[in-house]
């Protein structure tokens, strides 16, 4: 039986103490796995995708080549600073033993990971990119251009990026539960990124070859990606329940 009050309290608590990072130690037996390094790798990867999307979806006349690089560096530092305290063993142990069921922790986790992590990601990536753009322009052109920030923000906050990001978060959660070796997890993530990269092309082929007119970019954003995210989250939930039995 799920107690809504406990879920609420968990969310309330973890909004203040964000344990809600994709970390199997949050649920698992031993709290030996430290999530910092994975989180510090995860966000730069995210930033890299953002950078690719940025270049492919928002070509700029004045291209700040170093923007993504600074974005990536910044995206390593910020989440590390934010999560450093919360990844300490004592904090995780304390959270693990909080009286709530696995389902309640899963629910709280899912809600949190769909709010906090995207927020961290967007904020850290945005700030990183802005710094990158400003510095990149400053170094290459001697001018600190900030005029196209609003365009950049539009890319970060576009439904496509958010939809994609939610899918990556849920995928990361499932991968972290299915694969113990974190190196293999990262390889898995890379592979999925590669598949995602060709996904629009696959859509185009399906649309043309099989004459499926409903397969558009909007379908992907509002239907296919959220559907995949839901399935991944459901898969994670089932896996977690199994592990706790």
């Amino acid at each position: 039986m799920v107690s809504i009050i406990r879920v609420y309290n968990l969310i309330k608590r973890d909004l203040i103490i964000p344990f809600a990072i994709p970390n199997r130690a949050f649920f698992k037996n031993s709290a030996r796995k430290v999530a910092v390094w994975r989180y510090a790798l995860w966000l730069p990867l995210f930033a890299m995708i953002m950078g690719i999307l940025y270049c492919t979806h928002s070509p700029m006349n004045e291209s700040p080549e170093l923007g993504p690089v600074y974005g990536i560096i910044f995206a390593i530092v910020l989440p590390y600073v934010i999560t450093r305290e919360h990844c300490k063993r004592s904090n995780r142990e304390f959270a693990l033993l909080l009286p709530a069921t696995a389902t309640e922790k899963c629910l709280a986790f899912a809600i949190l990971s769909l709010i906090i992590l995207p927020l961290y990601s967007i904020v850290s990536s945005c700030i990183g990119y802005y710094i990158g753009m400003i510095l990149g322009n400053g170094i290459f052109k001697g001018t600190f251009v900030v005029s196209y920030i609003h365009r950049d923000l539009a890319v970060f906050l576009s439904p496509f990026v958010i939809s994609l990001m939610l899918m990556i978060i849920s995928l990361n959660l499932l991968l972290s539960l299915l694969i113990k070796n974190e190196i293999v997890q990262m390889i898995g993530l890379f592979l999925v990124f590669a598949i995602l990269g060709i996904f629009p092309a696959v859509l185009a082929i399906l649309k043309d070859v099989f004459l499926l007119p409903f397969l558009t970019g909007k379908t992907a954003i509002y239907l296919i990606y959220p559907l995949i995210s839901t399935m991944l989250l459901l898969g994670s939930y089932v896996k977690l329940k199994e592990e706790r039995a």
Partner: protein
Amino acid sequence: MIEIKNLDFHYNKKHKVLSDIDLQLTNGRIVGLLGKNGVGKSTLLHLIAGLQFPINGSITVDEFAPQKRNVAFLQNMFLLGEEVPSTTMTINKFVKINSVFYPEFSQQAFTDYLTEFEITDLTQSMDKLSFGTRKKVHIAFALACNTKYLLMDEPTNGLDIPSKASLRKLLRLAMGDGKLVIISTHQARDLQNILDSIVILDNTNVLISADDALITQKLYFGIAKGDENEEDILYREANVAGDMIVKLNKDGQTSNSDVELLFNAAFTNKEKFKKAFSE
């Protein structure tokens, strides 16, 4: 009651931490868990709390298997680790967001315990507190949660001398009939007079598990008079008042146990020691 049967645990297959442990701990007492460094005291506490899972064997706490982490079990179990979490929250905020998970938590008791530790300003940020003060806040919180089972890992580490006395007082005060407190410690003397039972771990197994009454029935602690049979003496330690000894209590003499002497006696004369308690 906590019942441990044939418990095996290791982090690494080559190095066993606990092997074939059998232990029964009944409620209504404060148990001292002693052992040398790395012997598995903290691991045993983690296993009882459900933070680690047994490799073989079982642990039962009342009707619960700790590794399942049932809510009803977790609501009655509090593990106070050696390291205490530090957050940027104030003491008030920390208590507010965590106490809701423990139905028996008493705000009044928490405030009283903090007052005993001479902490009155609850608006202080936890990360600005010294390690010792933060530990006192966590101890007060752990006690105020009123859980049936309280596991404490080195609770006196970082506490000043008056606070150690306060801790002893609070433990006695918070102790109810149905409760069981297990304290893992190296500072045996700090908790000398409040332990009802002693468990000593030695190289993956239990060397002794006995109540204080049984210990003083089997062993005599005191100053050597010179007429003792050397064969009966398990441990001797020079002291300003004379030699402190632990000897087999064949004459049924009364004495007060000394945890540190007991620990040294157990490791100096293991076989005699084991034999004394197996008879």
